[in-house]
């Protein structure tokens, strides 16, 4: 008496309909509305003019030094954050992968920063990365002095040129554990037979990693890159928590906030939002296509 066929093929559809509707309205509908605003004349608090303004809001961004500054800051941050997190996450996972004693404890310790709210973390790192020098030093500068590395003291995120590199530090600190967990899962997913076979064939440990394990980690590696990339593009709360709206650490999301809520220039703010969306799409869409393809192959 087992029913093998669903009699009403629409039944399943009706079950998912609410979430389809919600996504259609609150994700794609809102993106559409933002897109429309970004081409409109609503450039101040009192304008109700939603008519088409062409590309002027976008071309205006290119001529806006504040926007190019924020864009440059975001790129610097992204590069340092992604490379730093990848390397430190990989190293931590390599150390744990060997199966040391108390692995569970270390895993929790490394993952813990993920559980801290951005604002709490931002406040702590703001104190740590205080730019006071020498006998007035606090935080990291004080630690450097105590370690007789006083020469390395610097302005951290308050410095003119290095601000974004310093800003990447807390982000790396927070996300490394997560990347470690992803890599660790990747390592654990590789059957032991492969290593044993390699060992029997006389491969050294380095060679095993280089030619057997790392190639197997390629999908994990790609996932990590995408996750870090889109987190980085959207970064807001961490930077706001540390430096609020300071010019020196302004990134696109902070500038977007300022343009919408301080300037009430809704059209320009929407244009910045679309730019952020496009940057993220450029990163994420090829990845989704890749994932779909590899799943089809399975």
């Amino acid at each position, binding site marked *: 008496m087992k029913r093998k066929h669903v009699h009403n093929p629409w039944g399943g559809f009706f079950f998912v309909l609410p979430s389809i509707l919600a996504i259609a309205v609150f994700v794609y509908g809102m993106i559409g509305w933002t897109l429309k605003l970004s081409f409109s004349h609503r*450039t*101040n*608090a*009192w304008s109700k003019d939603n008519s088409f303004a062409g590309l002027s809001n976008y071309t205006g961004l290119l001529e806006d030094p*504040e926007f190019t500054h924020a864009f440059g800051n975001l790129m610097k941050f992204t590069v340092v954050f992604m490379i730093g997190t990848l390397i430190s996450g990989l190293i931590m996972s390599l150390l744990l992968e060997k199966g040391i004693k108390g692995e569970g404890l270390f895993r929790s310790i490394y993952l813990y920063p993920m559980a801290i709210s951005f604002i709490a973390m931002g406040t702590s790192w*703001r104190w740590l*990365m*205080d*730019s*006071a*020098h*020498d006998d*007035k030093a*606090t935080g990291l500068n004080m630690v450097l002095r105590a370690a007789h590395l006083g020469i390395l003291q610097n*302005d951290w*995120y*308050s*410095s*003119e040129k290095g*601000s974004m590199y310093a800003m990447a530090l807390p982000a790396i600190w927070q996300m490394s554990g997560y990347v470690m967990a992803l890599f660790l899962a990747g390592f654990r997913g590789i059957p032991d037979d492969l290593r044993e076979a390699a060992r029997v064939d006389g491969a050294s440990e380095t060679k095993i990693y280089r030619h057997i394990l790392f190639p197997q980690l390629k999908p994990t590696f790609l996932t990590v890159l995408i996750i870090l990339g889109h987190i980085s593009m959207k970064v807001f709360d961490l930077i706001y928590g540390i*430096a*609020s*709206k*300071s*010019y*020196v650490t*302004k990134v696109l999301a902070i500038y977007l*906030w*300022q343009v*919408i*809520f*301080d*300037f*009430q*220039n*809704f059209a320009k703010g929407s244009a910045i939002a679309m730019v952020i969306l496009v940057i993220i799409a450029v990163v994420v869409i090829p990845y989704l296509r890749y994932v779909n393809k590899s799943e089809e192959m399975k």
Partner: protein
Amino acid sequence: MRLNKLRMAAVVTAVAVVATVMPASQAATNKQLEIFTWWASGGEAAGLKGMTDVFVKANPNTPFVNATVAGAAGVNAKGVLVSRMAAGNPPDTFQAHAGQELSGYVKAGQVEDLTFLYKSEGWNKIFPAGLVKQLTTGGKIYSVPVNIHRANVLWWNPAAAKKAGITAAPKTLDEMLVDMAKFKAVGIDGIALAGNGDWAIAHLFDVVLLGSMGSAKYNGLWTGKTSWRGPDVKKAVDYMAKILAYGNSSKSLDWPDAGKLVTGGKAGFFIMGDWASSQWQSDGLKLETDYTWAPAPNNVDAGPVYMWLSDSFTLPKGAVNRDAGIAWLKVCGSLAGQDSFNPLKGSIAVRTDSDAKKYDSYLQAAMKEWKTDVLVGSTVHGVNYNNAGMAAYDSAVGKFYTGGAKDKTGLIASLVAALAASKA
């Protein structure tokens, strides 16, 4: 029996209907008062409570709903408020700095003209004429100021000054530079700087502009009468660069932390609004012994100048409880309201008939000067520029500061852009 029951039911129903309709007819405009502020802690919250008590006593049937959003200078509150105003869901009254900061809402037609209240409550006569003039745009006034803060105050620590051999407050910017060198010579930073979020540095720049060019030219900057590209601004920027060089090496302090450098004897001068005084008093410090003050140095003006800013309340168009909003504004402008709010907030009343005995010695001195000084507005706190202009101004000065005060032409170009942003 049956008839009696029916009669009973009729009476009960009638009573019930009357009971629900009676308050409902009042409730149409007076059901509650929803007020939107960013006063959430310390003296600000205490002052608001004082004013609220006055309101509740006068309007016992109107529940008071406080939609506070915490965050200094209203950074978070403004975000929430903009969303609500744009969505056509305004609170019954909201807090904003008096002046150009409101111009966006005014041009959007989102706030009501309050000239009628100024007439009926007699505020035209009881508020200083100079202030009423600065609040009026196109013959209309859109907010009721509850307090006056002074922005151009120079604070220092008497013990540290003694150590450096400084006996009197500097009268001009050049004297101030000399004194800062004296502080530096005894191992004290010349001036305390609060770099976090740019605004406190921009606040200092406001005061340096005023001190370097005088009140007349300073007032012309915001209208375009004084050129930003002219020699007066260049001179002020030179002073600014020299002053910044004496600052603390920690570039990311909030103003309370920068203030602690001064009260703790680690920095010499501090240019900050007079809310610093109430903050320090709540920390248990004593005026005259732990810290003292003078009007900020001024090279040009003959008499003292008062750089003011003011917190004010508005009446949004389309507010659900308009009557309650008006009742609140009446409390804001009243003697009882202002004198219960200001001593706790650490500001002075706008009204000229306020009771000086309720205020501390700094505020009493400020009250005297408020009545006689030349008045100029604070840019960073909403008087001279709209929101876009203000943000651009803060950014320009913040960029100059983190760049080591080297790019003077870049600063001036950004300041020109800030004026344009405010006019746009």
